[in-house]
């Protein structure tokens, strides 16, 4: 089983200036492609050779885990954007967000604070935890909710490569801008 680079579900020039075409060229075309290539190389001749991605993530560690989890995290990240997104959640997800965080605005505030305060490379997540409630979590490097019995709904990549071309050191500005391209239709479908 050979993994391949998953195509973006939108034209990568249409999210400008929140995420520039240049950032997509590297983030999707180079970083994600490298994780795909690395995993294909690393798993050859191992017990992971014919496993699906989720099983590899759950059963591996070290470089195989890092590359596999980064493939999942990035695909999940790239899939949640749209040039004309649904700007806020409705229905059951909206109710769950209100129940957990008081309001949608307060959720965004808390999630942004989490994303800004991940120290080093990593990810901020909105997940459904084992108790069935919504929770904001932070993961470093290739960390992913899949190994923690959590269902991921939304994620912000805060590795510097996700924003350095467009925002340099200004991670808070990147995080504030990213809300404009999150498609809540996609997030609702994951709930």
């Amino acid at each position: 089983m050979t993994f391949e680079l998953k195509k973006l579900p939108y034209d990568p020039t249409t999210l400008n200036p929140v995420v520039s075409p240049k950032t997509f060229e590297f983030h999707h075309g180079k970083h994600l492609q490298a994780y795909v290539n690395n995993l294909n190389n690393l798993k050859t001749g191992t017990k992971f050779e014919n496993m699906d991605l989720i099983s590899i993530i759950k059963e591996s560690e070290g470089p195989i885990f890092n590359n596999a989890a980064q493939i999942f995290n990035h695909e999940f990240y790239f899939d949640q954007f749209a040039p004309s997104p649904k700007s806020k959640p409705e229905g059951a997800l909206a109710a769950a967000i209100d129940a957990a965080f008081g309001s949608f605005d307060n959720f965004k505030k808390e999630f942004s604070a989490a994303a800004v305060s991940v120290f080093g490379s990593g990810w901020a997540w909105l997940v459904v935890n084992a108790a069935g409630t919504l929770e904001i979590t932070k993961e470093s490097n290739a960390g992913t909710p899949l190994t923690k019995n959590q269902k991921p709904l939304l994620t912000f990549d805060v590795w510097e490569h996700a924003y350095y071309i467009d925002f340099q050191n200004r991670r808070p500005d990147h995080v504030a801008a990213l809300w404009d391209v999150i498609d809540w239709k996609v997030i609702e479908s994951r709930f």
Partner: protein
Amino acid sequence: MKKILFLTSVLVVWQLSLTAQNFYEFKELPYSYSALEPYIDSTTMETHYAKHHKGYYNNFVKAMQEGNFDNKPLEQVIQNISSYSVFIRNNGGGYWNHEFFWNCMSPNKTQASNALTKAITDNFGSFENFKKEFSSAASTVFGSGWAWLIVTDSGKLKIVKTANQDNPLMDVVADKGTPILAIDVWEHAYYLKHKNLRAAYVENFWQVINWQFVSEKYADAVK
């Protein structure tokens, strides 16, 4: 005698009124932003020094001031980092590491001392092999972090990696020792020029290493 007493009391009052901001110095870069061109570009140097390094420094002095600032030199704080908050570990580490890193580079051609050259050959077989192993360590730090050449307690040279802003002086890291050379492999150290190609940045770093500084650090460490 009176004069000495007076001066001493002035000194004590001055010390008590010191803020963390005054006590911890944000040192100037030992060269201009463009001095390491074309190996390290000036935009990267400026952002790295004036934004990232300054940011760590500002966070660190603010946290020290709000906590229990007690006139401890930075190196002592770093060596006892387990008694401080994670925030101070991260930002104090970022402050110390970057200052050390700037000193590891120079626009001038420098040479390793005979003692250091011999130690490198003794520990790694050859300089070429040391270069290969150090570059490999720098290239394989996953996520943000640093690769170091350290002198261990037994006086041996060793290549180690640390995550985020940890360093080998900290009492919390696995591989402790005295750092004599460091390379920053956070993406901010190379992304503007090299994007995803960290190996190209690491290769360029060899062109600007300040071997005089590394040799001095080695001599201090084995004294």
